């Protein structure tokens, strides 16, 4: 069932529901996903909302930023950095975040499982 769903883009919310340069938590296929909208480079990112180090659903509430060109979110609990494109934890790569495909289509935010 899930495999089928993952092929499809699913509309999640409207673009105006997202806060520029910050994260938003949404529900997608019963999973918690953190979507980040970077207004400065006009990019969208989607990663799992569960912080594998702090063990809580808080990633969407972290601060976004960049380190030497890499866009990341910093966990609000213990401040580890996660690359928003790869999901990799820059301090301990064994704790990485699942990533999702995200796009905006006619001002609607859509998600699907990453290929």
């Amino acid at each position, binding site marked *: 069932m899930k495999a089928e769903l993952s092929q499809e883009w699913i509309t*999640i*919310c409207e673009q105006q*529901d*997202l*806060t*520029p*340069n*910050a994260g*938003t*938590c*949404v*529900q997608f296929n019963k999973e*918690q996903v953190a979507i980040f909208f*970077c207004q*400065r*480079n006009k990019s969208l990112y989607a990663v799992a909302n*569960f912080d594998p*180090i*702090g*063990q*809580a*659903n*808080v990633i969407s*509430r*972290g*601060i*976004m*930023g*960049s*380190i*030497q*060109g890499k*866009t990341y979110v*910093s966990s*609000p*609990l*213990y*401040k*580890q*950095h996660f690359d928003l494109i790869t999901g990799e934890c820059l*301090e301990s790569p064994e704790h990485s975040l699942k990533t999702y495909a995200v796009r905006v289509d006619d001002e609607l935010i859509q998600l699907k499982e990453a290929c």
Partner: protein
Amino acid sequence: MSKQRIIVVGNGMVGHKFIDTIISDDSVDYEVITFSEESRLAYDRVQLSYFFSGKSADDLALTDATYYQENGIKFVLNDKVVDLDFANKQVVTQSGRIEDYDKLVLATGSFPFVPPIPGNDQEHCHVYRTIDDLEGITESGKTSKVGVVIGGGLLGLEAGNALVNLGLETHIVEFAPRLMAVQLDDGGGALLRRKIEDLGVKVHTEKATSEIVAGEFCRYRMNFADGSFLETDTIIFSAGIRPQDELARSSGLTIGERGGIVINNHCQTSVADVYAIGECALWENFIFGLVAPGYQMAKVAASHIKGEAKHVFTGADMSTKLKLLGVDVASIGEVHGRTAGAQSYTYHDEIEQVYKRLIVSADGKKVVGAVLVGDVEAYGSLLQLMLNDMDLPENPSALILPTAGDEQASGLGVEALPDSASICSCFDVSKGDIKEAVAAGCTSMSELKGSTNVSTGCGGCSSLAKQVLDSELANLGFEVKNDICEHFAYSRHELVDIIRVKKIKTFDEMLNRCGEGLGCEICKPAVGSILASYWNDYVLEDAHIELQDTNDIYLGNMQKDGTYSVVPRVAGGEITPDKLIVLGSVAKEFDLYTKLTGGQRVDLFGAQLHELPIIWKKLIDAGFETGHAYGKSLRTVKSCVGSTWCRYGVKDSVGFAIEIENRYKGLRSPHKIKFGVSGCTRECAEAQTKDVGLIATDKGWNMYVCGNGGMRPRHGDLFATDLTDEMLQKYTDRFLMFYIRTADRLQRTSVWLENLEGGLDYLREVIIEDKLNIAEELESEMAENIKNYQCEWKTTIESPEKMKRFKHFANSEELDNSLSFTTQREQRFPSSKASAQPIKIIELTE
């Protein structure tokens, strides 16, 4: 030819220093074996007392097994050397091990002298030398109410501090008529006593303990020779040290009349190829009980063994500067009037409790000695004058008088020091060494410490070393880099100036004008805080959202499970029964864990995002407002009950605390700010541990600044006395805005002051004398801030748009289903997490 074999008996600080010196020279290769009767390799005995403020044995370690292994050093712990066979050049240990040597170095140190008092060997009688001793003292502390230190010398006072830290009623018993009899004169000793007694430690001088027997009220009773007695549960002996020369003595080395292995200027003993260094060695009939001379001996012995004879030991300076029980004390040179014709200058301020005495030569040209208690600023200058045999300035009294205005006038500019001037005596680092290190690329204190070890021993030279570093950097034309992060090539102070002068109102503007990249969790909140300090916008304006930590966005403190805490303001800690009932009923309705905070208010834990606005609506309707517990801003103004109820109070401390809290609430700053207001000198509000502390006197308010509790406690400095309400408000306005303008991010006022060039005197010049001519500007900035205050929670719940943020999912009404709770002591707690591994917190401070 096989390698030369060196055996080092004793692995204390000096033994380790010798090994470190020998192996750091790559041109020679020795086989080194070291023996220790302790179970640990060398650790820092100078810093031993830090064991009681949380440092572990590992933190104190000077080396570790890996380092020794990597450098090919064999070490044998827990095995004491019991015999030296000079004829066969062998050592024999307790376990029967026999090892050959080519060169033998004895670094057996000293042992604490325990006076032969009947009853001195009971279970809770200790000495103060090793980590094991400290562990024993800690154990005894658990079953004790009262503790006594026998001996009021330097180490005795350290031991006294340990007892205070363990929470015991602490007494110091000294045989001599004054404390620190060796280092201080009568005046200094008396002031030190007064200061220590003010801290609650009881000092008994001219007491000779005659026996220790069972006590009536405590575990033991100490009977004194004069017929009086003292009861205690724990005793620490700190009556001096004796050289550990037993092994040398039994093996036939020449020993001094009163102990100590006799050595010459090369640290050689009476037997060929045998050296003695450190506290076990006797040079010219003198034992050096400090680490710095021991280190010098280690260098001398190492150089002699290598055949260089580059260094000789010609005695050592015994000057010391240290903090004992929070009191600054320093002693330089000879202070007991043994120098013929010496004269002295004395400065004694009974109000500020400062004593300084400068002893000069008969011709008035050179420093002979000095005693400093309560203010040791002059230590560095005076010591350098003495060590380098420099001529005193024309008016020597200026060296110990309080500095009025120009700091440089009385102090000694580091430029004036010769390159040979010793800056750090623990590690024998000269000004020339620092110059070399700077020339080789050192630009910060931490780099300098790494390359030269300067200031890593007792730390007494850190400010002098920093001055030399800065002056050298300036000489080489370096610009000291202070960038806040990779996105802005500016310090926080510079960002403040840019924002103020260019009237920048958003992060975007800031990034476009002078930054690059997307920002980060360091510069974003810093800029957010500055914008809030200067324009005092509602922090949740859309343009500012991205700058805020989650705590600021959701106006609560995130807890480990992702829920938040709720802390309404309870100004001055005063609350009506009705309001207290509201807090209780709200907590009950939302099942919030409830706890009182140290700042005299109530913390409610475990609120989920969607509950936060409902909870706050109820609180605001009942007359509460946000407590800013989540913000880098004014937290609480703690107060005692004051003159309205208290029999002793001289002013209405609660009323004044409420006024202050309402004046500065919501003010955004580089870090949190706390106030305390005490209604009399009994100081029940603990105001001296706050950023701003006010203590009522019969003439007005005494204002203390830059105190701190927490991880690195610091007593506030007395800034101004007997202020009227109006003056106090002016000074506080200026002080806070000046701090906000110039501090680094996440820098509390305590650290800010310590880093402020010119220190407290400079701060007084800016705030009180208005040296920079900015007082009016600072006051008007504060007035603007106060005018723009809003309760962020009130603004939030009044805006349907803002309220949208307070739900877990943007696209669903469901809640976070991963939360789970347990019940303990009738309240709700988060269930413990599956991962029990320690979590490494990423430090954002550097």
